[in-house]
């Protein structure tokens, strides 16, 4: 089993839009990563200078980001 994140490079248009928003969310430089669990399934990470947050679905991601 890999001990690192399995980052998915292919993003949907919606995810690309969210990645663009995340890049300056709240005035901070952040990065959105779409990742795959080893057992299957997708999750999202938004990472900034001091940590980040992890969302289990795109809906949860939007909630954390404060976008519709």
């Amino acid at each position: 089993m890999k001990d690192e994140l399995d980052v998915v490079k292919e993003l949907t248009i919606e995810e690309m839009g969210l990645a663009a928003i995340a890049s300056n969310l709240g005035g901070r430089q952040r990065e959105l990563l779409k990742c795959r669990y080893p057992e299957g399934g997708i999750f999202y990470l938004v990472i900034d200078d001091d940590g980040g947050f992890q969302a289990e679905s795109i809906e949860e991601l939007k909630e954390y980001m404060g976008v519709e």
Partner: protein
Amino acid sequence: MSLNTALDALPIFPCKIDKSPLTPNGFYNAIAGADYSHWPRVGVATGVVSGIDVIDIDPDGLPWLEANRARLPLTREHKTLRGVHLLLKHHPGMRNSNRRIAKGVDIRGDGGYVIWWPREGYPIIDRTLAEWPEWLLDLATIDAHSDLRAHSDVDLHAVKGRMYGPPSHGGVEPTGNLKLRSTYVLNKVERAQVGERNRLLFWGSCRHGEMIGEGRMKREVAERLLESAAKTNGLWRDGAADVRATIRSGIETGIKQWQAMIGDKASMQGPHTYMRPLKAGADFSVGTRFRAKAKT
């Protein structure tokens, strides 16, 4: 609580220098008591799993911190790369958000993590974790307000004032941020309780009528949004025809209010005004306002 004791007791996981988790499951691989001596960075899961919420303040948020220092409880603080982490006891249900409290002030709760900067030698103020103060809890958890803050730099009170405040120009003012205003109004309609749903649906329809009158929103879009809000609050099930009638009546009232306001302004300011009066039933496509402004 000493630094080592604190970190040893917390659910931690390795992070890279770029702060991304060095684990396959993100913070789900966090465990207490792990040997972190060789990790590039130490991540600490926040929220219910650690019992810690973190107010993450970056340089943009430092003025807020200074302005509110006296109101904030004495609690543990970590200096970070660019700002400060205030650590508080986890409040049930506290989740992540950005800018709910103020610009440059994030919350890390359930679903979040922070880099543990003390491990990198950054200074701390070692105090017992405090509870969230009530005033801050309100700011951090009120959905409608926080969503508005997250969407825009527009001051919430100014937005509320626009809708509820003292009437000016006949009680109707131009919409600033269309999405912001519409979302706020629709939230109110969606959350209406039995006994107030019709009144708030009519109120919301009036407000959208004003936006239509301004030329900022198409009528069919407003109708769809309002019908959806009525489905959410349950009013639709009680009678779709009545809902449509209320929406139609409210929208027409709102358009008339906007036209009356424009008429008043025109008579006060002469022919070169903000926008000429609109005719009822016209096609109010988005952009009308801007074309009208270009003429002045």
